[in-house]
């Protein structure tokens, strides 16, 4: 066995002949994973499409009770956070460690703000009785058809919020590593992967926002 090649992030795994190869492989793996994730949401969106086709009027009426203010605010928050994470990667490429950490912390804060607003929004809906399935008790609209919109609203935004929260966890880990100097201008693939994942989270929301909030 030949001696292991040392890199900034420890020894290079034996199956790779260069760091570039390892990074390219990691990126490919992430893209495949994101493709797989998209299909997870695609299944739910297919359900949405089918039910909206059957109940167009009910979906229209139900979406009028979505909280457009919070939904729109969250859209801006997530778009901004995608910018900050992209800038963090840019800062790493330029070798600015402190700026990287600051931008990652900003991204984390925006992600958490999204979650907090989402919880406030859920609480408001539940107070009104806009609850999924059997728990639906919203007096203004009859259950049939409308409850499907409400259930899908919770499933879609809930699954998305889980991804936001998971992404925040990953960003915290990345921020700690960035603070410790694990990323160099030429070796920061973990940060890139975190950024890619965060963009997916953002992108999914770009679909959810019009489908759930803007159809009225």
């Amino acid at each position, binding site marked *: 066995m030949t001696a292991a090649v040392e890199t900034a992030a420890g020894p290079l795994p034996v199956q790779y002949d260069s760091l570039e190869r390892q990074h390219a492989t990691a990126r*490919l793996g992430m893209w*495949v994973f994101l493709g*797989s994730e998209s299909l997870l949401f695609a299944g739910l969106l297919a359900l949405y499409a089918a039910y909206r086709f059957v109940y167009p009027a009910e979906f229209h009426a139900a979406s009028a009770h979505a909280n457009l203010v919070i939904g729109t605010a969250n859209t801006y928050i997530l778009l901004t956070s995608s910018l900050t994470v992209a800038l963090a990667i840019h800062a790493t490429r330029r070798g600015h460690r402190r700026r990287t950490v600051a931008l990652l912390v900003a991204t984390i804060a925006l992600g958490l703000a999204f979650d907090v607003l989402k919880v406030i929004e859920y609480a408001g809906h539940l107070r009104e009785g806009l609850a999924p399935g059997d728990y639906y008790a919203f007096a203004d609209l009859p259950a049939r058809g409308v409850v499907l919109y409400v259930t899908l609203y919770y499933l879609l935004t809930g699954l998305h919020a889980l991804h936001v929260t998971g992404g925040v966890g990953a960003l915290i880990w990345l921020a700690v590593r960035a603070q410790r100097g694990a990323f160099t201008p030429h070796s920061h693939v973990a940060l890139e992967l975190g950024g890619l994942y965060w963009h997916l989270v953002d992108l999914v929301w770009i679909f959810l926002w019009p489908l759930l909030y803007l159809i009225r």
Partner: protein
Amino acid sequence: MRTEPDYLRAGRGIRSWLLTRDHKRIALMFLVAVTLALTLGGAFAMILRTKLLYSGPWLIEPLTYNRLFTLHGVVMVFMFMIPAIPAVFGNFALPMMLGAKDLAFPRINLASFYVYLAGAALALWGMIHGGADTGWTFYAPYSTTTPTDVAPVALGVFVLGVSSIMTGLNFIATTHMLRRRGLRWHDMPIFVWAIYATSIIQVIATPVLGLAVGLVAIDHALHMGIFDPALGGDPVLFEHLFWFYSHPAVYIMILPAMGVIAEVVPTFAKKHPFSYKALAYSSLGIAFVGFLTWGHHLFVAGISQFDAAIFGVMSMFVAIFSAIKVFTWIGTLYRGSITFNTPMLYFFAFVYLFAFGGMTGIAVATTSLDVHWHDTYFVIAHFHFIMIGGTLTAFLAALHYWFPKMFGRMYPERWGLVSAALVFAGFNLTFVPQFLLGNAGMPRRYYAYPDRFHVLNVMSTLGAYLLGAALILTLVYLLASLRWGKPAPANPWGSRGFEWRSPSPPPAHNFVVPFDPAHGCYAYDRPPPDEAPAVET
């Protein structure tokens, strides 16, 4: 050159196994796990078949019967059939066939094993605790309203799906990025093509299954009513989501099996495949068309005639690609120098059973005929011909084919041939009567049946016992040869395959000397490359 220990002896102690990153060791751990799953699923099948010796109530309660066929399906499909060949033999052989020292993401590979265990534990716990009685298909609205414990079983299936995605992702990245320098796509063994096509299905289709069964679990636990007609929902949508995965999942089960066969045939016919490209691209063809056929499960669920016709025709395209493969294997045999070792005998069993299962697949893809056969034993017999006749025989072929490489021991050839013949006989005796039962109108999943079905049911049960005995025999002699088998040479079959150019068993990083891809993996018209040097034992 310094000698190094083989991968089985590279580290000692239980920790060196449980925390290993070596794809070969992870493959062996998966082998143990899927063998346990096969044993468990087989045991349930034996109880079911024993019950069906008599129509009347005996041996088990009807509810227990329902739980057992659900358990049989869930264990066999999600814990045995889907991971069996990719996670065991794909894991073991794919990196070696590419000349890689390991998979692209060894930690994800190890994690996929533990995720598999967690999913299996969750599903089995749910089964013991309350036991789902929905069948492995979890059809709504029954699955969301039955009082049995559907949620943990469905979540277990979800978790098993995550493991499957991790495996697929690893294989895709490895195939693209870790091929040995000079090894082009068209130099890769056919098995790699098959596993690659399978992996694409795994990463694309599995999340949709995860979503569908996840929704059933949530619905059952919280009454969300997403498929509940009382709240305006549509149960047929569940069937769409479920089969969007579960039909391609059939190809997750059969494509790797075809890959195994494509390695076995050239090796034991000592001949280049009749058409390399036909075998390689037909795998991708099946993977692609397989995504567009799911509607043939819904012919009687109220889809339009137009949809049904499209799905029927798309399903028949699969048969074209499958037939290309079968004819290519047969063409490979022509003027080959054939030796009848156990893997080769399994190939003959495979071709017969797969062709039979495939042709009946065309029959049930025909909309008018399917109305007659839908939900009868005809369908049961059809998919067992593909799943057992195809996947299980290929699994056994692979096990015997790579056994010397994996363990450095030879299995007893005579016992291998005898048990292969018994598997084939037992299988036919089990499932041929089921075609007749189904055609005569016996529905699947029924606890009782009219007297006129008695003889065929008894035949089927006796066949199942024979099949079970043959599998136990296989297990016994394979376990015995781990200890008492003759030491295996590096290349006992005289194969040209890349993985055989390493010692048996291989060293931790697979090759003592990197192989030369210029000497192709099917170059039977040239003398074999040098024997791999022995390693210290």
